[in-house]
Structures are given as C-alpha cells and as structure tokens.
C-alpha cells in the first residue's frame, strides 16, 4: 500500500539553515497494517507522514502510495491523489473553530463533485461511526478536546480513504480518551484500512492492535519491532 525508496526530505536546501528532516528512509507498509512511528521530538515523524500523505514531495527518492509514484507529481495531481486515498488526523485537530461540526466534516467533500444528498449521507455515516450524533450543530470551538478529535477523525474518514494517518493523536488526551481513540483505530483496522500513527506515547506504541513500531532518530530509521 505504501512504499518508500531511499526517501530524503531536505528543508532550506543549499542554505546554512539546511535540515535533513528525513534522510534516506526505505520502508514498506502493507494494506491493513497498523504502524506506529516513534521517536523523539524533531526526529522527522511529521515530515515522514506528510510525505506518505502526499502533503509534500521528497527532495530525493520515490514515494509510492496506493500504487502510484507521487514523488514528482505536480500539486493538483498530488492533491487529487491525496484526497482519493488518504485521511489525515492532525496533531492540533485543525478544525475550523467558527463553523459547525457538520460543516467541518463536510469540508473535504466540497471539491469532490458530489451531490448534496450524497454528501449528507457520508457525513451522517461518519457522525454515527464516531458517536458524535447530536453534536453536529455545535460550533467546533465549543467542543471538548476528545470530541474535537472525534470530529477530526470523522472528517478524515468522510472521503472513505484506504489510508489513515494520525500525528500525535493522543498528545492532548487523557488516558481514558486515548484508549477510546485506539479503540476507534482498531475498528478501522478491522475494516481493512491501513493506519500509520506518529507518536511517542507508550500507550500508543504498546497497544496490542499495533502490528509494527518503527523508531526514528534524526530522520533515519533506527529500529523496527
């Protein structure tokens, strides 16, 4: 499902500030796998996720996502590929605070050329799945952290992607809510989704549903278990 071949991502290339955020990583993730990327702050986890998630392109190397080489795709095609295959749950949720939960979940569907009815059904499905029915009229900023995260997950799922990426999903949650989150991930894994989570929370990488933990340091892979 996901394949990285000798991938490097350099920021500020050719300047004194140059950073190798990801440095020569090769990696393969199969369909239906749940993988955790672990490593200290600044080790390149988020960068790797953005590469897998078609949010950015590698400086060198090849990234294959859902059977397509995305490393040299121009923006419209890269984005197109992303919205067909990838759902992203961001570290700070990144909901739009002033609009309703319902509209937040609708956002990824707007450019997709669906009928309003189809969109409605999709959002209803996502609301049901994440048990946030009844909250859809609330503004995003009026929700608790746990609820906000469920909205963010609902938004990632609404396009029905095969790949789910989550960046530090439990950083702002208590243990109870973190377990909740992992339960949701387990459910998605059962549906056959491929899941990649960047996290240095033991609760996450010691979770029994996780198939593999990949450790990173300074942009390189240092261990795999």
């Amino acid at each position, binding site marked *: 499902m996901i394949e990285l071949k000798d991938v490097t991502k350099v920021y500020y290339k050719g300047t004194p500030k140059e950073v190798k955020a990801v440095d020569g990583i090769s990696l393969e993730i199969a369909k239906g796998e749940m993988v955790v990327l672990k490593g200290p702050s600044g080790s390149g986890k988020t960068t790797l996720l953005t590469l897998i998630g078609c949010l950015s392109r590698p*400086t060198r190397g090849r990234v294959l996502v859902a059977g397509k080489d995305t490393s040299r795709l*121009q*923006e*419209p095609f890269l984005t197109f590929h992303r919205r067909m295959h990838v759902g992203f749950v961001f570290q700070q949720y990144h909901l739009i605070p002033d609009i309703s939960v319902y509209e937040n979940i609708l956002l990824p569907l707007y450019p997709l050329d669906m009928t309003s009815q189809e969109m409605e059904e999709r959002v209803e499905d996502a609301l049901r799945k994440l048990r946030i029915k009844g909250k859809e009229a609330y503004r995003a900023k009026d929700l608790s952290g746990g609820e906000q995260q469920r909205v963010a997950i609902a938004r990632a799922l609404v396009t029905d992607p095969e790949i789910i990426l989550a960046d530090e999903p439990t950083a702002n949650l208590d243990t109870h809510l973190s377990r909740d989150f992992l339960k949701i991930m387990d459910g998605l894994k059962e549906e056959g989704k491929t899941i990649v989570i960047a996290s240095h929370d033991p609760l996450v990488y010691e979770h029994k549903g996780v198939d593999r933990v990949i450790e990173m340091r300074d942009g390189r892979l240092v261990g795999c278990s």
Partner: protein
Amino acid sequence: MFMNSSILALVLGGITTLLLLIYGAYFGLKIALQWNPESATEEQLELEKRTYLVSTIVNYVLLFEILSLILFIYTVDDIHEIIPGAMCATGSLNANRFGFPTLLVKLFTFFLYGSWIVLNHIDRKAEDTPLIKTKYLFLLGIIPFAVLENTLMIAYFAKIDPETLVSCCGVVFNPGGKVTSVLSPLPKGEMMGIFFGGFLFLLLLGLAMYWRGGRLIAYLFSASSMAFLVISISSIISFISGYIYQMPTHPCPFDFLQREYHYVGYPLYIALFGGALFGLAVGIVEPFETRYRSLTKAIRDFQKKAVLLSMAGFSVFTSISVWYIMRFILL
C-alpha cells in the same frame, strides 16, 4: 482629441490589462526557460505555483477583453452624437482610419486569449504538462497584438475630429458602398443561400467530428467555423439586420445592440463568437493529439465537448436570426 468617461475607462482599462498581461508573460517566459519537472527544488515549486498566477491572469485578461469589447461598442455608439454624419457606431468607427482596425484587432486578441486558455486547460489535464513551453511562448507571442490593440484604440480616440463629416452605415454597407465589396459581395438571395447552406454544412461536419473524429475533419471543422463567422457577419449586414429592424434598407451591424432593439445583439454576437471560439479550439488542440500520448484522451474529450458547444453557439445565432426573419414574413 476627444475625451469622456467611458473613453477614459477604456484606455485605462486597456493599459492596465496590458501591463497585467506583460507581468504574466514575464513569469511565463521564466517558466518556459527554467521548467524542470524532475527537480524538487524550491525554485521548481515556486514555478509550479507561478503557473497558477499566469493562468489566473490570462483568464481575467480574457474576461476584461470581452467587457472592454462591449464597452468599446457602447462608447463608439454613444459618441456618434458628436460626429457629424454618424448615425450609429458604424459612422463613429469611420471617423478615422483607426476605428475599424481597432475593432478587428480587439476581436483577434479575443481569439488569441481564448486559444491560450484552451491550450492551458488541456495541458493541465496531463501529469507531465507537455505543452508547458509551447503555451508560455505562445503567450509571449500574444503581447505584440495586445500592444497593437491598445495603440490603435488610443490613436482612434485621439484622432476623432468633431468637425469632419463621416459616412455611416447607409453608405458604408449599402450596395456600391465602401465595405460592400469585402463584406457582402453578393445579393441578398445568394447570401441567404450561402448562410443557411454553410450552417447545414457546419452541422454535418460537426456531427461527423463528434461521432468519428479524425485529423482532417477536425481541421476542416475549425476552418469552417471561422469561415462561418465571416459569412455570418456578412449576412448580418446583408439581410439579418434588415429583418431585425424591420427595415430591409437598414444594414447596420451595431444598432441592434441598443435598447431600442432589446439588446438582441448581445445574445446574437455572444452565441456567434462563442461558437466560433469553440470551433477554432477544435483545430487548435488537434496537432497535440497524437504528439503527446498523455494528452490524447483529454484532447479527444475536449474536442467532443467543444464541437457540441460550437454547434450550439452557431445554432442559437441562426435560430435568433430565423426567428426575426419569420416574424417579418409572418407579421
């Protein structure tokens, strides 16, 4: 020199548009020279973003060109009041030798911008954007015409002399008049034959293009739709306008843009020029159909759509004309 607020708007609008276009073409040139899809450097990413700037600019330039055409016709019609002998836009355009050339070059640049947008639209469909150099060099080639357009327009307004008598549509377009020999060389009956014959021929060709396609038919359709544009304008002068005014001796191609005729000229000309532009587009994209594999499908799909739109435009134009003819005959 003659000046009023719409002339001022036209000239300033024209210069602004031109500067915008030059700004866009400058980045176009940069893209054409530095484009390297294999590189993931900041520069390449920046160039990719710039392509959106350029296409946004050209889209708006086309829009402004259309608006400015409308305003130009309105202005020219408006100022006939100060030009002795002028009874409508025709007379005003005749006020000096820059009038009609301005209009022609304006129409020509309309087709240039339209063609560029078509190329860009097609190119965007392929991941390797194979036309990237072609289209930006083409954009550079449009600039001289945009400059010419504005120069002619300014010269036209600057040289208007409210003291000189001009000849108007009655003289210009009537048999024996100046433009007659070029635009309506034939008597009405024959002109009607050519018009309706041409329309049917174009429809058949369009259907063939839609169902079968093929290089020859594509070029033929494209050329025919441009020819039909010319035929249509001659027909407007020769007989269509007469039916609209219910006055067979009144051959003006501008008057029916006015309020008195319920602005019918706008749908008429928009349909006609829309049809012609889409017709032209069929041929513009044809050479790339086989040259670039990644574009083949996009071009075929586009041509089918363009042929339909072109036929629709011409049909609307012909239908409105026929409606006026029927009204005249039946009432």
